[in-house]
């Protein structure tokens, strides 16, 4: 064996590309050179630190205390003034960052996991009854009017605090699942998957070792998109009375402000919308840059 090996080594193409990089380091490189993406990530991190502070009890704790006068204006004590019953708008707006992250993270992570698993299974067994059932379920969930669905879940769960989260997860996973399914259908016809079959790798290992890791970029980008969608949806749901039950959120603040703005009190409205716009905008830009860096097919 060795004799032939040596002669081959002479003939073989041994020179390697000198640029050495993994797929992730390439993405990191691209992202680092994306100024807007880095700025956006910085802003998101600032928000995240604030949310962490609220969670640890460092600030934003006075959100429910009724202290000031009705509709008080900005002052040293109440930076953003007070609301209709004299609560501190600043503390409420800050506390809402935590609420937003809670909703965004819970919904994004769980719906992505669910979408990834179901989408991968559907795609891998494309055309089988498993696929048909998952497709049918996605079709069904997509065709129920969303706000009605949330309301229905809220009814069914009898006012359970997380019914909004559950409803969002139940609806948002279908988008991820469709994307993953499409990608898996493409991937499973790749020759490296056939090679795994030829070796005798069991199906579940093929899905989780060979196929799923190749969909990670979709999952990462998709979860940032769901994060934003969840925060934006919360606002509408809270306005409709279907949203956050305990605590305060930007949605509740804006809902509160609908009566105030026509009377000329903008504190609640401006505080909540500006903070929310900042986070959503930064996250959208971050998601964009992430996609540029990770998705080889993304055209810009």
């Amino acid at each position, binding site marked *: 064996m060795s004799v032939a090996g040596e002669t081959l080594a002479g003939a073989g193409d041994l020179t390697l590309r000198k640029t050495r990089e993994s797929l992730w380091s390439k993405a990191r490189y691209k992202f680092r050179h994306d100024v807007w993406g880095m700025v956006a990530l910085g802003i998101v991190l600032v928000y995240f630190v604030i949310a962490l502070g609220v969670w640890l009890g460092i600030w934003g704790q006075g959100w429910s205390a009724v202290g000031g006068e009705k509709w008080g204006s900005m002052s040293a004590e109440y930076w953003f003034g007070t609301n209709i019953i004299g609560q501190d708008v600043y503390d409420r707006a800050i506390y809402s960052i935590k609420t937003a992250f809670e909703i965004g993270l819970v919904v994004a992570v769980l719906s992505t996991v669910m979408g990834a698993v179901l989408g991968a299974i559907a795609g891998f067994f494309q055309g089988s009854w498993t696929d048909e059932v998952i497709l049918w379920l996605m079709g069904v969930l997509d065709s129920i009017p969303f706000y009605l669905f949330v309301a229905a879940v809220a009814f069914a769960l009898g006012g359970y605090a997380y019914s909004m989260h559950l409803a969002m997860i139940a609806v948002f996973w279908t988008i991820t699942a469709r994307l993953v399914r499409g990608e898996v259908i493409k991937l499973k016809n790749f020759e490296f998957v056939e090679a795994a079959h030829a070796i005798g790798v069991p199906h579940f290992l093929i899905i989780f070792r*060979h196929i799923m890791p190749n969909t990670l970029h979709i999952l990462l980008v998709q979860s940032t998109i769901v994060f934003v969608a969840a925060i934006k949806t919360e606002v509408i749901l809270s306005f409709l009375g279907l949203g956050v039950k305990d605590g305060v959120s930007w949605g509740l603040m804006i809902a509160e402000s609908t009566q105030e703005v026509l009377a000329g009190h903008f504190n609640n409205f401006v505080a909540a919308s500006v903070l929310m716009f900042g986070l959503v905008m930064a996250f959208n830009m971050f998601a964009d840059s992430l996609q540029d860096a990770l998705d080889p097919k993304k055209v810009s």
Partner: protein
Amino acid sequence: MMNETQPLLTVRNLKKYFPMKAGMFRKGTPLKAVDDVSFDLETGKTLGLVGESGCGKSTLGRAILRLHEPTSGEVILDSKPVTGVKHGALMLQRRKMQIIFQDPYASLNPRRTVYQTVREPLDIHKVGDPKERRHTVEILLERVGLRRQVMDRYPHEFSGGQRQRVGIARALALNPKFIVADEPVSALDVSVQSQVLNLIADLQKDMGIAFLFISHDLAVVQHVSDHVAVMYLGKLVEMGPAASIYKDPRHPYTQALLSAIPNPDPKHRKKHVVLSGDVPSPVNPPSGCPFHTRCPRVMDICKKETPVQTNQGNATNPHLVSCHLYS
């Protein structure tokens, strides 16, 4: 081919039909990708399988390995059946048969290192203990002409030819007796093509592996094959010893294929036998001889009756042709 001894691989009446949907519940006429193919292959020999795109040659290779479940027919490898057996028995057979692919970019998982890729078959079939496996991978990489330093690299760091070598190392890992090489060099540049072809020839000599070498390129096939089979619309139309096929092609289709190859010698600009028309759809193949719609020597009988296989060689070296010209 017809030796007294048992051939390594026996394929009998293999068929692979793909169902076509005509309506929601009705089944249409199936696409006959592989239609009643039989051949034998001996240990350490190579059968070159040629044909144009869509003729079913890749499907045949995959059906033999049961990567596509055959519709009917029989495959026997090393005296044991491949078709019709349960998972456990198939896993045992999988150790003896492997495949090398065409596209060096799609055949390696981009998220796994060369080491992980080549080692996977050893893990799946629990060959040796983990330490031995590492050593085996090193030997395999050396065998295909790659340094062991490349083990922790990812596929995108390699050129097409190098990737193809990794794919070959993976196929060799389980010490198979039979390998399907599906257009292994057609995606490579000419100068790299010959490197890989030489590697395959060496492996065959040293390790006694039998190859089913699938290609659309008759020149490539000539270099590696002991026997050659020509496929058209899912059927083998001609099969025989390589020397006899190239020197004395019998089927008009084989003749046309050989004549169509551009000759890299400007002094001998030859007149090609140019076939008229295109390959018919395999969903709706012509009646009688499938080649009659394009055949320059077509007769009346060709349109009605399917030709039977006749031996134009001798008993020890059969040269089989399915054509009415010889019956």
